[in-house]
């Protein structure tokens, strides 16, 4: 159940992000970082940097 909650939270967060990505996706990377690392603790600082490098 917790898994599903996380998935829903992810979907909602990114739907909101996409609404604010006017002019380009790069503009929402700081907000993505804030959400994923600082607020929801979905990943560590290092993981975020790694995945940013991959993507």
């Amino acid at each position, binding site marked *: 159940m917790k898994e599903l909650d996380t998935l829903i939270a992810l979907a909602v967060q990114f739907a909101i992000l*996409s609404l604010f*990505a006017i002019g380009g996706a790069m503009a929402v990377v700081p907000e993505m970082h804030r959400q994923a690392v*600082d607020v929801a603790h979905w990943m560590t600082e290092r993981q975020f940097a790694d995945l940013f*490098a*991959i993507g």
Partner: protein
Amino acid sequence: MACWRLARTDATTSFMPPDLDSSRPPHPSISELFRAFFTMALHGFGGVLPWARRIIVEEKRWMTAEEFNEAFAVSQFLPGANVVNLAVIFGGRLHGAAGAAVALIGLLAPPVTIVLVLGALYEHYGGVDDLQRILRGVAAAAAGLIVAIVIKMAKSMVRKLSPAPFVALAAFAAIGIMRWPLPWVLVVMAPASIALSWWQRR
């Protein structure tokens, strides 16, 4: 496709005035639409837009350059990734909802697959020391590219006297230092910066 193009060339050279011909854009099938956007996505590492223009305007001639610019202007204005919006608008114009869906899936399938595979690989091998070092280097390079873009944009802002540098600094302070949520920062700053530039222009 090839034989259609041949017939068209014949018609143009023999008896049809060229401007009448170009005002009648060809109508691609749903599967052609899918293939075109799939190809764009495969070629477009680091930017699909040049490929979208090349395939839609130059190769397939589904749109004139003006039509393409107009559709892209709308995509830029709408929220979301520009090229994704363009695919939906273009596909929708040709084949309604089905066309929009097909263009969107064609555009997203290759990168989504590639990123999922890379993500799975990272999950397995992310802890390996050598990979860690490589990723650190790539992340540093990516950050450097962003800094370079910022400097380029800042140069053109400073040249003419405007409130733009202050808006940029305020945005940086709010997001980078205060770490405030983006939606709130935008809600406050977007009207403020529009008002500032309107006031300056008077």
